[in-house]
């Protein structure tokens, strides 16, 4: 299918469905979400909707009006028009993207902040803490940092909103010319002029670069009469019913119904980039009945009534009608200018405001509160938090119990503690408050910082910057960065994602003859060569293997492999006729050049034999290419003609038509002018009158145009996918029969070829014989079915033989030549059909996109009757699209086949390598495309999605029982495939979806498939597949990558959406979470940054919990020494700033900068990616290990410092602070030392500086506290402590050092032992199966530590580096 079809499918189907999809998707997601979301998030969301959206943003759902809004066209309205739905005047044209006003900011934000889960938790802890007596850790240790963080967030929010306010103001205060009654002459005018001048100083909206703004003299519009004139009105004052006059390059201030345009035929051109991202100009035309509205008197005299649909967010559909003098004409997309578009190439246009302000389409579409995707790791983090909450509660209860026991054993007897009993609630609440910081308040804030840092790191990676198009990598979402490291499914679009989306016309098939194009001209076929090359690349190694090694196929266990699993394989022997046709098409560029007719020859032939049947057909075909499109020619300054096409395919076709002598020079609304240049340079202009255009839709998969030729003939041209054109041909039955025949023979041919390209040794190592067998059975070389475990040597010559056969055929065709072409053959439909289909399949085999062209001549009477019906359909207000389709269907019958075109879509650079690496990384790659199956499979082959050893299963609903097919595939896949690829088309998928049992079986198969190619998939189907994967394999993380609007639904329903900011506009890139400019950057994004970020975030979470665990262990242990009464070991202020100042950098810095392995290693050994997929960075055993570690280390710190400093010593300071400060200092120094120095692998200057700053800062803080603290008798006698009492005691310092030494020896000892054992192959000691000095291990099973060690070896580093950039040569190994 053509890219245009696919693309417009996206435009029409994609985006409109995407919102629905999104909604459905969300509800689906809710189902799988945890109880946590159900209980906490959903009520919050509901309340948010109820109070925030409806109350604050005043976006209550309105009842629909009876039949749309009625807007009479009047020069002036006495009173503002009333909105039937509201009973008030229509909303003003003010837009408001800001969320708050200056008055409601604080209360709303406070409410909003308080309802965020973690804030809520900390408020619950922090508020009771401020009550005196409850807390022993100071009253403000939670509430102060919390307030700080909340204020920080609020400030950020306020700043963002301020910016929005400013931009809103700029936008609302722009001026537009609106028709108004004169109110006392020039005085007012002068005032407005002044106002206007003021606006010139208003800063421009940054996203709307504009050429010259209206010049001053335009202020005086000559067009006025006694009462009315065009007045400069602020945008915000425009209301529905106003008449607005726009000049060239003006922004459209509201949704307008076009009344008049100055262009030819009343056409206005608009650019809608801001709306849908499409860069091409769109033509808009005023309804015919409104011709007189070109000036004020005209408008005054025109009494038209507009009826429009209620405001909605569908950008691709507009329903309305306009009635003038009993004549009703439709109001469609074609007559309406949306706010957000810009008037281009049109001197001026006049429009009637139909939607204003927030009811404009662009505002309705604006995503006010995009729902953030959730990171996968958050789930684990939340589980960890939950366990920690359990831990805190357990600890608190335990210690409280300790107090009760102590109380009854001791306190009651202690006379000095009379009445000092602490109530149980106070005790337990006190402990809860004390230990609540085990769940660090800073986690969420630091996480934000880490995410931002990570985003900047990715952002600044110059290796993902495409210099060619000057596109850097863009992060739209920073919350799910670590998801990039856990992807197990990549769902890729084809066009523009795997391929470059630069279309080149490469060939055509007319009258049974195939022509190549652009191979001998200036656009010499590098790309074809390239494609060929990349296709070869995959088999390069194997072919060399073939040369070097003896090929053997081991066929064994035949019984396990059903022969006919692949239902499409035919066992028929191809007829000779078919074989000859196989040879008749270009197989490769080389053959194309020496064996095929090029289009230049065709031109020559046409000029020599102008009346030959082939010439006629060819001319018609070229004309069809030049006529059947929706593109616009644009004359550039230097006189060249550039085409404004909505898809690159149309562009390619038009350029081809230009090359072939028909240049589109002008396209008015009702005519197309072509400049015909004959071979001898003669030029003539031909004008075709456009009668009707039935536009493309994803459902129709075709477009038609009805033109009146210069000779008066009414000619219907249609282009579209073969599947829709063939049934509409005059000889549909014959055509489809031929089509099937050809397809069958093609398959045989392909089996043959792929068998020869197959690296046969590969079959043996997987022990997967069925594929080979199956192939064999459909080939000339038959294998005796009885032969079990037969070992046969495939003659190496067979491939060459096949080539010879083909080239023989080719040469025969060549000999026959064009001149010898039998014209009768052109008329022989059967032959033409079969050849044409053969050519098409062959084009597709080369990865070319094919379109079929068909035509028919309509008699005037037939046309007239159809026209009437069509007119009715197009003006219909209800169900218009369906009626148009039905009407079109009536006329789109009985076509004659014109021919087929083939367009090349070049594979992007580095795609096969990238896909190969992703596959090695354990990522399954699915290709979802709108293209036809053959093209898809071919691209899949050259992109390495299908490998030579792959078993390809094709599900095709037209090939018999689907159930049987699916069943066969299931059996085959389960018995074990090397690499299984399933090909399914959209139609079949639809049928699968419709049948519940089949669906169950099919989707159960998903986890076992290595790749799936889904061709001819609609946008919603693409999204459906994503959802199916997500539902079936909840643990798998999906990534969708695409570039066009048709991928939006898929991108949004995936865990991670990646957009290619390519040539197809920025729609996908804008909604995607990440956008890159080339597919090959995906490997760096996933393998390097994804892994890094996963590892960083995992470590960040683990380390954060570890440090809190560690830190509060000492606090908990101290409780034993104070009768479990809750006296805090730590001083309040230090505790307050602990997480903010002294233990934040040690997790944030590695969280942003850590690289456990070098990028080169990760790229060279993609297998290392499983680290994230298998969640090896943050899982329960690992987490528990860290918990135990933190506990043990806390115990060591406490007991050693307790023993050394107090138990066995006569301290110079027996106070609590000296002891507490010792633990605190140890806590901070060791935390930073361990995390920054021992754990962080990638030690940069930043790490060193952070360590120095934090540790130095801590001692500075101690000094500061020691002098700044007020002197009193508080238990924490800080004053002078650090500077004079314990700070001068060598014992204090020696204790500090010895504890550090013990911990360090412990850490380093463990590491050294582990490292030594790793090197010796003895690690882990409990896993004896994989070890062994000389044993082979899979890369992913090697410990990271080993890789880190390997990296340090210079020669290995060198090799890894070469492997990573693909320049690694196997021969190095053999030296």
């Amino acid at each position, binding site marked *: 299918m053509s890219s245009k079809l696919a693309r417009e499918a996206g435009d029409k189907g994609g985006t409109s469905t995407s919102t629905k999809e999104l909604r459905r998707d969300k509800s689906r997601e809710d189902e799988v979400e945890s109880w946590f979301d159900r209980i906490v998030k959903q009520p919050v969301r509901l309340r948010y909707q109820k109070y925030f959206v409806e109350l604050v943003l005043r976006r209550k759902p309105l009842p629909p009006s009876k039949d749309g809004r009625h807007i009479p066209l009047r020069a002036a309205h006495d009173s503002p028009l009333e909105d039937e739905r509201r009973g008030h005047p229509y909303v003003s044209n003010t837009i408001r993207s800001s969320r708050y006003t200056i008055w409601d900011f604080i209360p709303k934000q406070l409410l909003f902040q308080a309802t965020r889960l973690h804030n809520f938790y900390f408020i619950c802890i922090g508020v009771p803490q401020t009550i005196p007596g409850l807390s022993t850790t100071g009253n403000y240790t939670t509430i102060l940092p919390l307030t700080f963080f909340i204020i920080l967030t609020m400030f950020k929010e306020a700043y963002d909103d301020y910016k929005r306010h400013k931009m809103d103001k700029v936008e609302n205060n722009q001026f537009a010319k609106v028709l108004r009654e004169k109110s006392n002459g020039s005085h007012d005018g002068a005032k407005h002029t002044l106002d206007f001048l003021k606006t010139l100083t208003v800063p421009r909206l940054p996203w709307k670069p504009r050429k010259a703004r209206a010049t001053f003299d335009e202020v005086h519009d000559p067009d006025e009469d006694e009462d009315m004139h065009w007045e400069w009105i602020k945008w915000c004052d425009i209301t529905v019913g106003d008449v607005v006059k726009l000049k060239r390059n003006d922004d459209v201030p509201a949704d307008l119904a076009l009344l008049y345009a100055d262009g030819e035929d009343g056409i206005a051109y608009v650019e809608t980039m801001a709306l849908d991202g499409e860069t091409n100009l769109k033509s808009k035309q005023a309804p015919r009945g409104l011709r007189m509205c070109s000036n004020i008197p005209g408008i005054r005299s025109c009494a038209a009534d507009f009826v429009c649909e209620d405001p909605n967010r569908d950008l691709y559909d507009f329903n309305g009608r306009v009635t003038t003098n009993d004549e009703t004409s439709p109001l469609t997309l074609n007559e309406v200018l949306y706010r957000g578009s810009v008037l281009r190439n049109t001197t001026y246009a006049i429009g009637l405001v139909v939607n204003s302000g927030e009811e404009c389409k662009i505002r309705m579409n604006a995503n006010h509160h995009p729902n953030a995707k959730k990171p996968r790791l958050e789930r684990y983090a939340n589980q960890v938090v939950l366990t920690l909450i359990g831990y805190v509660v357990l600890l608190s209860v335990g210690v409280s119990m300790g107090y009760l026991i102590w109380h009854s054993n001791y306190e009651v007897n202690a006379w000095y*503690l009379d009445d000092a009993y602490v109530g149980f609630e106070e005790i337990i609440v006190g402990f809860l408050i004390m230990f609540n910081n085990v769940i660090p308040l800073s986690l969420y804030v630091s996480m934000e910082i880490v995410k931002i840092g990570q985003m900047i790191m990715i952002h600044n990676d110059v290796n993902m910057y495409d210099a060619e198009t000057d596109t850097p990598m863009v992060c739209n979402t920073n919350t799910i960065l670590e998801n990039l490291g856990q992807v197990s499914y990549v769902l890729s679009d084809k066009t523009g994602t795997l391929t470059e989306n630069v279309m080149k016309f490469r060939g055509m098939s007319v009258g049974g003859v195939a022509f190549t194009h652009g191979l001998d001209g200036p656009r010499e076929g590098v790309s074809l060569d390239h494609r060929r090359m990349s296709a070869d690349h995959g088999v390069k190694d194997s072919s060399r293997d073939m040369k070097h090694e003896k090929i053997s196929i081991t066929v064994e266990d035949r019984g396990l492999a059903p022969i006919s699993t692949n239902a499409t394989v035919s066992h028929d022997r191809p007829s000779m006729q078919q074989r000859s046709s196989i040879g008749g098409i270009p197989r490769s560029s080389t053959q194309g050049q020496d064996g095929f007719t090029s289009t230049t020859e065709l031109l020559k032939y046409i000029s020599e034999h102008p009346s030959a049947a082939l010439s006629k057909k060819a001319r018609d075909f070229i004309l069809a290419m030049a006529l059947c499109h929706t593109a616009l020619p644009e004359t550039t300054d230097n006189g060249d003609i550039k085409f404004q096409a909505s898809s690159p395919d149309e562009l390619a076709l038009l350029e081809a038509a230009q090359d072939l002598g028909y240049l589109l020079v002008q396209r008015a609304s009702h005519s197309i002018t072509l400049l015909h240049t004959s071979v001898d340079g003669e030029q003539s202009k031909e004008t075709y009158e456009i009668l009707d255009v039935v536009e493309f839709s994803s459902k129709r998969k075709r477009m038609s145009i009805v033109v009146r030729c210069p000779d008066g003939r009414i000619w219907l041209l249609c282009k579209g996918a073969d599947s829709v054109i063939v049934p509409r041909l005059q000889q549909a039955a014959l055509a489809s029969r031929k089509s099937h025949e050809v397809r069958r023979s093609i398959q045989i041919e392909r089996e043959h070829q792929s068998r020869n390209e197959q690296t046969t040794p590969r079959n*043996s190592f997987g022990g997967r014989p069925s594929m080979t067998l199956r192939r064999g059975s459909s080939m000339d070389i038959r294998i005796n079915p009885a032969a079990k475990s037969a070992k046969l040597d495939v003659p190496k010559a067979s491939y060459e033989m096949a080539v010879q056969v083909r080239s023989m055929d080719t040469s025969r065709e060549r000999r026959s030549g064009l001149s010898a072409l039998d014209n009768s053959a052109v008329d022989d439909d059967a032959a033409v059909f079969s050849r044409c289909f053969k050519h098409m399949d062959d084009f597709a085999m080369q990865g070319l996109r094919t379109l079929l062209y068909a035509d028919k001549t309509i008699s005037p009477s037939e046309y007239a009757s159809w026209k009437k019906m069509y007119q009715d359909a197009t003006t219909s207000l209800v169900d218009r699209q369906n009626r148009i389709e039905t009407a079109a269907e009536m006329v789109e019958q009985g076509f004659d086949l014109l021919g087929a075109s083939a367009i090349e879509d070049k594979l992007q650079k580095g795609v096969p390598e990238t896909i190969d690496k992703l596959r090695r990384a354990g990522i399954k790659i699915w290709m979802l495309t709108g293209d036809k199956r053959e093209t898809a499979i071919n691209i899949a082959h050259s992109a390495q999605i299908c490998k030579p050893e792959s078993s390809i299963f094709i599900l095709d609903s037209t090939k018999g029982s689907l159930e049987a097919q699916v069943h066969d595939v299931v059996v085959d896949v389960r018995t074990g495939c090397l690499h299984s690829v399933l090909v399914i088309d959209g139609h079949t998928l639809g049928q699968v979806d419709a049948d519940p049992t089949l669906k169950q079986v099919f989707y159960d198969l998903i986890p076992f498939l290595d790749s799936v190619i889904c061709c001819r998939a609609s946008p919603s189907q693409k999204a459906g597949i994503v959802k199916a994967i997500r539902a079936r394999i909840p643990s798998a993380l999906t990534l969708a990558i695409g570039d066009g609007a048709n991928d939006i639904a898929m991108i949004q329903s995936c865990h991670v959406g990646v957009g290619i900011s390519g040539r197809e506009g920025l729609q996908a890139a804008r909604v995607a979470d990440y956008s890159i400019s080339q597919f090959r950057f995906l490997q760096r994004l996933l393998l390097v940054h994804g892994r890094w970020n996963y590892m960083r975030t995992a470590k960040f979470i683990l380390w954060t919990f570890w440090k809190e665990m560690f830190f509060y262990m000492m606090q908990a242990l101290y409780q034993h020494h104070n009768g479990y009464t809750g006296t805090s070991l730590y001083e309040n202020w230090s505790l307050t700033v602990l997480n903010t100042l002294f233990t934040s950098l040690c997790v944030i810095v590695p969280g942003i900068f850590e690289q456990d392995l070098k990028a080169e290693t990760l790229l060279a050994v993609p*297998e290392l990616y499983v680290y994230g997929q298998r969640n090896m960075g943050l899982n329960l055993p690992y987490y528990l290990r860290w918990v135990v570690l933190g506990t043990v280390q806390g115990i060591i710190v406490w007991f050693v410092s307790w023993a*050394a400093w107090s138990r066995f010593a*006569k301290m110079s300071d027996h106070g609590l602070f000296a002891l507490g400060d010792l633990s605190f200092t140890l806590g901070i120094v060791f935390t930073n030392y361990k995390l920054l120095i021992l754990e962080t692998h990638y030690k940069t200057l930043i790490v060193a500086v952070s360590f120095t700053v934090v540790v130095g800062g801590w001692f500075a803080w101690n000094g500061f506290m020691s002098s700044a603290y007020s002197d009193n008798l508080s238990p924490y006698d800080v004053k002078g402590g650090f500077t004079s009492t314990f700070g001068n005691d060598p014992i204090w310092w020696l204790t500090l050092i010895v504890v550090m030494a013990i911990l360090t020896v412990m850490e*380093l000892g463990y590491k050294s032992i582990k490292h030594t054992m790793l090197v010796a192959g003895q690690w882990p000691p409990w896993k004896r199966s994989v070890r062994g000095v000389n044993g082979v291990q899979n890369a992913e099973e090697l410990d990271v530590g080993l890789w880190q060690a390997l990296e340090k070896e210079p020669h290995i580093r060198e090799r890894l580096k070469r492997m990573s950039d693909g320049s690694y040569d196997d021969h190095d190994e053999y030296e």
Partner: protein
Amino acid sequence: MEVTNNSKVPLRTLRSALSHSTRRSSQKCGDIIFAPIGGLLLWASAKVEELAIDYSSCAVNAPEYPNFSDIPSRQVTSRFNTAAVSGAQPARWSRNTIIKTYGPDGMAPVNTTVCMVQFDIPKEIGPPVLFYYRLTNFYQNHRRYVKSLDQDQLMGKNRSSDKIKESDCNPLTVEPATNKSYYPCGLIANSVFNDTFFSPLQLNVNQGNDKNRSYDMTNKGIARASDKDLYKPSAYSVDEVVPPLNWRERYPTYNASFPLPKLQEDEAFQVWMRTAGLPTFSKLALRNDTAPMPSGRYQVDIYDYFPVTVYGGTKSILISTRTAMGGKNPFLGIAYVVVGGICVLLGALFTATHLIRPRLVVFSLIEQRKIVRRSPAL
């Protein structure tokens, strides 16, 4: 050629020489530094002379004066840096009950148990000689107790009863009957350690009449110098406040005869108010920084008021000298030695494995789609 299953990624060999030389430098460093420090600390700790006698049960177990009996040996710790002196006597104790009167005119007679403790100082020690009392199982760090004081009141401010009620002194703020504030209020002040220690008396110095000689120790300079600033003469008049409950024996009430205590001069009180972080603690009571304490037999008289047995605690006197490294602290030295030892051990271990294990280890690296596995012997 060897063929592997594709479910595992095909591997290809890559030779690698991995040495493990990186991590041991720090441990070597540990060997060199930690053990000597440990030795030094042990030596310093050994230099410290120390004598501790637990007299908690003196009032019950000691015989009436003039009889003396041996103090159970587990209640005596004598660590002197000298060989055992022949003829050394065990520490002994005796008790006597007298009536001690407090107040200017002896207006507050208090039944007082005097505990007399005799012990040997086998060698001349000090100066300085520090006299501590040590309490065990006394929770000065109790959550309520530790905060139970009013800084402003101690600073001499006239704090009204209402203010005191709201202050940290809780639960000992005002006398319920009179609604007068305690001065000083709070649990800490109330439970001030009120045993009185007298300077050690050296026995039988001369065989003559004047056979005993006092080794004078002072209770000045026992508190932190800065602590004086925390106490000021009180602005209360004597009828505004009442003494804490536990003070009543010696201070029945405040009046002209019983003026408000001069807390700013009472260093023992100041020492007490600096709460200890752990339930076992020693606080300085007396000191002599000038003269050495000659060897000989000493007797210390103690007015024994402070009840410890009710809550299962003990109280001891502690006579100690001090070095630059502080008091006796064998643990730290041992810790250093142990750390140094472990470092040596690990170092040896790694050197051993390093020698035994071959340096050359072959690793497998993945090579794209290659199924050739070379023999590791290459």
